[in-house]
Structures are given as C-alpha cells and as structure tokens.
C-alpha cells in the first residue's frame, strides 16, 4: 500500500518536472536559496532537508518589486494583542493561506493550489503543487482531499448535517474523483459558482485535512484499543469529539496538527500568550530565493480587549488594528514617538458604518405596513444629513453613501451610492404626506393611520457610543419630518432575539459586511437569505430553514432579489453574474431596504517603525481577504534583524 502511493507520488513529480524549466523564475540551483537562520540548527542536525527540497517544485513566487514593495530579510517576531483566547484564529485569517485567494486587486489567484480549472461552471479540477508538504514534512496530496470528502464530509458522525452547504447544488453533492496524486476533480450536475469563492473565504471552506495525522483519531483507520485510550486520556466523549478537537484548522488548538499556513501554532492552550512559528515547508518564496514568511514568529498576547489601545500605545504590539477604534486615533498618534510606531488610517470595508434597518417583519401591523411603503423608507433616508454625521463624528474622513458597494469594488456605481441620500426635508415631508401620514399633532409629530403619534423606538445592540451619537443627530432631523425616535440600547443577544421576533420596529447595525464584492462573490447579503438580516429576519429565516419556519417574502422586490440570488447560484459566467449583481444593487438603491449613513470610515492600523512592507492604505475587512491577509503579512519584515 505504502509502496503504491510512493510510486504514484514519484510519477506526479516526474510528470511536472519539465514545467520547472519553463517556469524559469526560480533560482537556478540550491546555492541560490537562502535558508532562514531560525531553522539553521535543525537543518545542520539533518532534521530538516534543505530549502529546495522543502518547498514545492513550483512554489508560489511573490514578486515584491512588482507590488512596489521591498524584498526583505528573515527574522523577528510580530507581536499582536488580542482580547480573547478564541482570537487564535486571527493568525489563520491574517496568514490567509487558501487553496485560492484574493490578491490586493481582488483577483482570484491560486495560492496553495498550483492552478484550477472550471468547465461549464460545474466541473472543477484542482491541481496541487507537486512536492507540496505539510508543516511536518509529510506530502500534501489528493489523499488529503479524499480523506476530507469521504471520511469527514460524508461521515454522518463527523458531519451531522452532511457535506458543507457550499458543496451542495440543489441538495446534491458532487462526484469526487482523484485523477492522480496531485489532481482532484469535483463535478456537479449544475453550476456551483459558490464553490471557488468559498475556498477563498477568510473563513474558508476546508476541503482537505492532514489525513496522515488525523487517521489515528478516525474510527475507520485507528486501532480500536489505542483510539479508546486516546479518547479516555483526552477526557472527551467519543472519537468524533477527539477528531474534531485534534483536527481543527481554522481555530487551531492542537500544536501537533500539521498545517499549511505561514505560521503554525506551537503553544497548547490554555495560555495567555500564543506563539506561532514559521512553517518550514511553506509554499511561497520571494524572487531572491528566500522562503516566506520573513518574520519567524507571531506572538499573540491575550489580555483584556479594553486595554489593547493603551498597551499598543506603549509599543507592545508591532502590528495592531483589532480592538482599536477610530476614537483611539488621537491618543495613539500622540504616543507614536514614545511607542516607536506609525498609525496608518485604513478604510473600513462595510457597506455602511451604521445602517438603520426598518424591520419589515415587525409585529406592529401599522409600522409593518408603513415600512413596506417605499415612500416612507425613501423619506427617512432623505431626512438624514449625512454630511453633518460625517463631519461631526468622523472628522469628514468617511463617505456619505447609501448602504452599498465601496468605490474599490468593481460593482460600485455612483448612482447606487447617491440614491436617496441627498438631504432634502421638503421632499421627505412630501413623500410622507403622500404615504397617508399628512395629519400632524400640535408639536408637528405626525399621526399614524391608527391615531397614534409617529414615535418609534430604535434599538441598538448597545455596543458603541458612536451609534448613540449618530442617532442623536438623526433624531433632530427626523423631528423636522414629524417622526420622533427614541434610542434604546440593549444587550446583543437580547437585541437579536427581539428583532427576530419582530418586537423591534427599527434597529441599528452595520451595513453590508462585504462591500468590496466582485461579481464572482456570492450576493447572499442582498437577498433575504438569513435570519441575521435584521431588516427582514423572518423572510431570511424562511429561506435558511427551507420553508419550515419564518414567512415567505411578500414584497415583489424582495421576491425578485431572492430569484436573482438563486439565478446567481445557477450562473455559468462572470458576465452573467455581473448582470445579476447590478440588478440586485439597483433594487437596493431604489428600494432603500436598509438606510445607510456613512461608509469608508477609518480604521487605525498601528505599525511598528521597524516593520517594512505594510501598506499605508488598505481596506480593513474580514471578507474578502481576511483583514491583513490580502496584503500578505508573510512579506512584512523587520528592518533591524540580525540576518
């Protein structure tokens, strides 16, 4: 058995050998590779092979000069501060080693994979880099994909709900084939455009697993008595828990788990300091023959999230943006010298820093009816002075906009950004009069159709004073159109429960999570597809739970959005997807289902003066690209290292 695999593996490398000459950008001989000093002892002790044998035959070559960055040197530790032990996942997010990933310009490029082919939108052929190895030196091959598909995704004990949703088209799984040791193919009966973007997600769809390591925890492969012993000594319920715990890649907790990331976990929890060490088999190199990452270690210090800004100011972090808010900017700026860092201002990636969400599924029948009248939604949007909000709260650094794409997105259009966003109280009043709210009380507050005054409570999750400040500004202007709001901060869990149940008439939350979308990314946020969409929780729930609970959308425009989303799920080409996206964005701009305020607000990013290659400008967004991930933190280096 082992022999057979070895021989096939050999074939796989042999077949691709001619490609090496063609590639040409690799250093000509082993002499030209530069070994990281960090691994010197291990290489000299022959515990690690030389660099040329550690990297794939065709590694991913990062051309830093073309990216207008400087090739670097090895060494150093990047220190970061975190507020929660669960934040260990941030190293996997920032590291952003994915089968395919987004680059700085939002193009999808193969990363761990050598390449991939899509035929007819439904046949996906993925090619692994020959010679690619896990961090423990074991080859990374098609077997790791097979193991995931057959022994994890299709094992009913490990995957209770079956294979991941992105791998099902109309509930049907793909046909999985191993073409050779380095090539796998997934074939669906119909197009599956969600597949590749899911692989590139900041929270990726993992379709592989370190099979050589995990088999010892799998009931199908492990020796029953040994497995029993492992389950007892780990004090878990059964082998599934053990397998889950040992094999978790996104939020790692097992230092023994082989990984493909730039840095691998080396500290066993519980701890307040996690050390991630460089992966000696990482698949990216620079043009000068150095293996990435440049920095040897990433150190996470876990403390209280409230202290992060203060600790950063004393120079305890080399690269920090998480848990730092815009209001910390002046404080950090004043500490720049003492702490030895620069504070850059990146843009934030939400569609709107703060959006007002009229609950179309509110329990109150009068408000529900009003919210479904587009004139009311438009009027409320027109009565917000976005310029004032931008100047007063965000020092004019934001962008007055509806809740839509950012200009950096290829799907951005100015008319989406400006739709119903000019400050026009006259027109707002006119629209409300037309909507049947013409009668007013002595103090100018309108009467609702059932005789109540038009007063409503806007609920927030009570997480930031910023929201309260913005609402105070909005409140004054809405009074001028005869609508009085009261702000009520609650607690996050309670807030969501109340919105889901329809007890909340209007809520506040951030806008679109992904406002940097390309046509190939899923437009699910624009259609009623999830309960967490607070403007139509019951419609979203209806889709999410396949009609079992919730309510089907009854506004024609919302139904159209859902149709368009389903059409996207069936689409075959990028052009087709762009058409769908634009129609959806157009409906949103026109219908104002969510009322955006300001987007592109700033995210302070603290960068040590010693750290080179961190872009001065960027977009801080989880998706696409995993915060720093798209900007390749493995290429960040310290100017004062010993190498």
């Amino acid at each position: 058995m082992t022999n057979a695999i070895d021989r096939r593996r050999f074939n796989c490398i042999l077949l691709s050998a001619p490609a090496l000459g063609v590639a040409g950008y690799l250093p000509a001989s082993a002499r030209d590779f530069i070994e990281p000093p960090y691994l010197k002892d291990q290489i000299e002790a022959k515990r690690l092979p030389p660099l040329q044998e550690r990297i794939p035959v065709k590694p991913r070559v990062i051309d830093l000069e073309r990216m207008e960055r400087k090739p670097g040197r090895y060494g150093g530790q990047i220190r970061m501060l975190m507020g929660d032990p669960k934040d260990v996942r941030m190293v996997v997010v920032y590291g952003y080693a994915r089968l395919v990933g987004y680059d700085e310009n939002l193009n999808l490029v193969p990363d761990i994979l050598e390449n991939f082919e899509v035929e007819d939108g439904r046949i996906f052929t993925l090619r692994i880099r020959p010679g690619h190895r896990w961090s423990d030196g074991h080859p990374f091959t098609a077997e790791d994909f097979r193991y995931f598909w057959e022994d994890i995704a299709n094992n009913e004990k490990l995957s209770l709900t079956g294979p991941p949703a992105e791998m099902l088209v109309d509930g049907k799984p793909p046909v999985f084939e191993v073409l050779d040791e380095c090539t796998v193919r997934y074939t669906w009966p119909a197009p599956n455009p969600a597949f590749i973007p899911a692989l590139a997600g900041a929270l990726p769809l993992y379709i592989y697993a370190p099979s050589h390591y995990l088999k010892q925890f799998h009931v199908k492969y492990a020796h029953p008595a040994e497995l029993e012993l492992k389950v007892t000594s780990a004090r878990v319920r059964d082998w599934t828990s053990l397998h889950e715990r040992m094999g978790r890649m996104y939020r790692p907790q097992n230092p023994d788990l082989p990984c493909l990331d730039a840095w691998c976990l080396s500290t066993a929890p519980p701890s307040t300091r996690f050390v991630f060490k460089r992966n000696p088999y990482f698949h990216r190199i620079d043009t000068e023959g150095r293996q990435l990452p440049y920095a040897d270690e990433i150190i996470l210090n876990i403390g209280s999230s409230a202290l992060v800004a203060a600790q950063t100011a004393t120079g305890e972090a080399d690269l920090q943006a998480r848990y730092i808010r815009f209001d910390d900017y002046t404080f950090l700026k004043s500490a720049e010298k003492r702490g030895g860092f620069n504070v850059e201002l990146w843009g934030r990636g939400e569609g709107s820093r703060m959006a007002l969400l009229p609950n179309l599924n509110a329990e109150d029948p009068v408000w529900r009816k009003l919210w479904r009248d587009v004139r009311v939604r438009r009027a409320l949007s027109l009565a917000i002075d976005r310029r004032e909000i931008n100047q007063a709260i965000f020092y004019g650094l934001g962008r007055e906009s509806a809740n839509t794409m950012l200009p950096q997105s290829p799907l951005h259009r100015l008319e989406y950004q400006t739709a119903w966003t000019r400050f026009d109280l006259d027109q707002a009043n006119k629209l409300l009069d037309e909507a049947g709210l013409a009668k007013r009380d002595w103090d100018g507050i309108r009467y609702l159709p059932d005789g109540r005054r038009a007063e409503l409570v806007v609920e927030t999750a009570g997480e930031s004073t910023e929201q309260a400040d913005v609402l105070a500004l909005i409140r004054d202007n809405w009074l001028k159109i005869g609508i009085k709001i009261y702000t009520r901060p609650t607690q996050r869990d309670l807030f969501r429960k109340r919105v889901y149940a329809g007890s909340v008439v209007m809520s506040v939350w951030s806008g679109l999570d992904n406002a940097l979308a390309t046509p190939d990314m899923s437009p699910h946020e624009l259609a009623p597809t999830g309960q967490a969409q607070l403007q139509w929780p019951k419609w979203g729930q209806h889709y999410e739970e396949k009609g079992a609970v919730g309510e089907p959308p009854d506004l024609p425009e919302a139904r159209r959005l859902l149709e368009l989303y389903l059409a996207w799920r069936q689409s075959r080409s990028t052009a087709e997807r762009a058409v769908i996206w634009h129609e959806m964005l157009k409906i949103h701009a026109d219908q104002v289902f969510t009322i955006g305020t300001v987007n592109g607000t700033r995210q302070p990013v603290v960068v040590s003066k010693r750290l080179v290659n961190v872009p001065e400008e960027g977009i801080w967004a989880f998706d696409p690209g995993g915060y720093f991930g798209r900007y390749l933190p493995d290429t960040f280096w310290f100017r004062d290292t010993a190498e």
Partner: protein
Amino acid sequence: MLLYIFRRILIMIPTLLLTSALVFTIMELPPGDYFESYMAELQAQGEGVDKARIEFLKKEYGFDKSPVERYFIWLGGLLQGDLGYSFEYQMPVSELVGSRIFLTVLVSFATILLTWLIAFPIGIYSATHQYSWGDYGLTFLGLMGIAVPNFLLALILMYFANVWFGTSIGHLMAPEYLGQPMSWAKFKSILEHMWIPVIVIGLAGTASMIRKIRANLLDELQKQYTITAKAKGLHPFKALVKYPLRSSLNFFVGGIGGILPEIVSGAEIVAIVLSLETTGPLLIKALQSQDMYLAGSFLMFLALLTVIGVLISDIALAFLDPRIRLQGRSTR
C-alpha cells in the same frame, strides 16, 4: 462539639444541592445559549460563522437535550469530580481553572495580608484616639479608599507605573514570561507587577476593615469592664489588647469564612481591567458568553468553599469566644 460538626456537614449537602439547582436555573434564564451568543459575536465583528461546526458542538455538549436532563448530567459529573467542559476554551474546566489558581491564590493572599497589616494598627489607633486629628485624617483617607472605584485606580496606577517605571501594562508579568515555566526571573517579574493589583484590590478592603475595627473596638471601649480595668490601673496595653480588642474581633473571625472563596476567585473587575491571569476574568467571561459548565462548576466550587469557610468560622468563634454556645440552651 463533634456531633455539632457532623450535623453541620450533613446540612451542607442539601444546601449545595439547592445552590446547584439555583446556579443552573439562573444560567438558563437569559435568552439563547452559548452557541447563539457566539454566533452573534462573530457576526457583530463582520465575520463568518461555520454553521455545521456549531451544530456539531451543540450535539456534543448535549444541547439537543432538555435543560433538566442537562442539569442532571452536569450534577452527575460534579459528584464524580468532573467539572465538565468549557465551550469557550474547548477544554476541561478543571485544567482551565487549575492553570490559573496558583497566581490567583498568590495575589489574593498578598492582598489579604496587606489589608490586615494596614487595617489593624490604623483601626486601633482611630478607635483609641477618637475624634482626634489623626482619627479624622485617617478616616478621610479610609473613606476615600472606599469611594474611589477600584478599576479607575487600577488604570491610573497602571499608567503611571508604565510611564515612571516602564512596567508593561496589564498582566501579572512581562509578556515574555507568559506561558513560560516558573523561573527566578519570572518570579521577579511577577513581584514587579503584583504590587498594583495588590494595592488596588486591597485598598477598598483595607478601608472598610479600618471602619469595622474602629466601630467594634469603640463599642467595647465604652463598656464598663474596660473602664473598670482602667480604673484599677491595668497596664494600658493590656487594657486595650487583651480584653476589648479580643472581644471586638468576633466580626473578624466570622469573616474568615468569607475569605476562603475570595482567595480563589480574586477580585473580578480589577483583574479584568488589569488583564490578570487569575480566575476572576475567567468567571466573568464565562458568565457573559453563557459558557455554562465553566461558570456553573466554578460557582459551585465557590459555593463549596463558602460553606466550608462558614463552618470554619463558626468553629473558630466557638473556640475563641466562650460566650458563644453551640446549641440553643437557655442560660441559667
């Protein structure tokens, strides 16, 4: 006496059972469960949620069962010494608490010692020099100590310690020693960092302790036996320490029972502000995120220590103060 102790131990069993039911019920009361608030947290940060994994975890932790069933599973585990699993940390509660208990006990112990060392002399001085300038001055300081919020003081001290002495902010040691095995350098680093939490946590306790000693001692000092003793020419020291002070200490001995859980839990809020590696932040975090077994088992542990502590106090009181009777016998 033995019979009394035996009876008290028997009574502890229903007390703890009742506590466990209460703890569990209260933790079940808030809407949702750990997994829902976890998903909400991720969504609040604009991050993705792996629903399949959440389903898996829910099943693994028995969330497909009814609360009553889960209560008995948890209770059964507790009886066998199994504190359950923390969702948040994905590890056994005992390991989690165990990893932090040493530093917690160290900080708490130092704090309590400091409290006593400062409070006793000052309290006695204030009582014996009632309404003097010294008494007013120290009372003023003591009231300040009670009035200043601990966390605020913590922040201020931390800032100045950093600016003046270069002590790193937060934590009980410099970052490079976190997660390292104990060494002399690490111990020194701990000592260097420990004074802030010890002062901050100790301050309010010291202040209130001063007030209590002063009040109790004053009561005794005005009693006739003290006046008689003084009138008879007993040495002033003896007339203060041997009789009135001893009698005024009942509140103190009674309070020893409360110290036991305090040593283990540490001061929660201050520990959060200072990012201490003690058990306090663990407990608060667990309660916030509805990490039921971690919070529940820890609270039960504290409840157990409280019950034991009260028992110890009662026994100690009975020994120290002959006026206290164990049974409600009528006095002749």
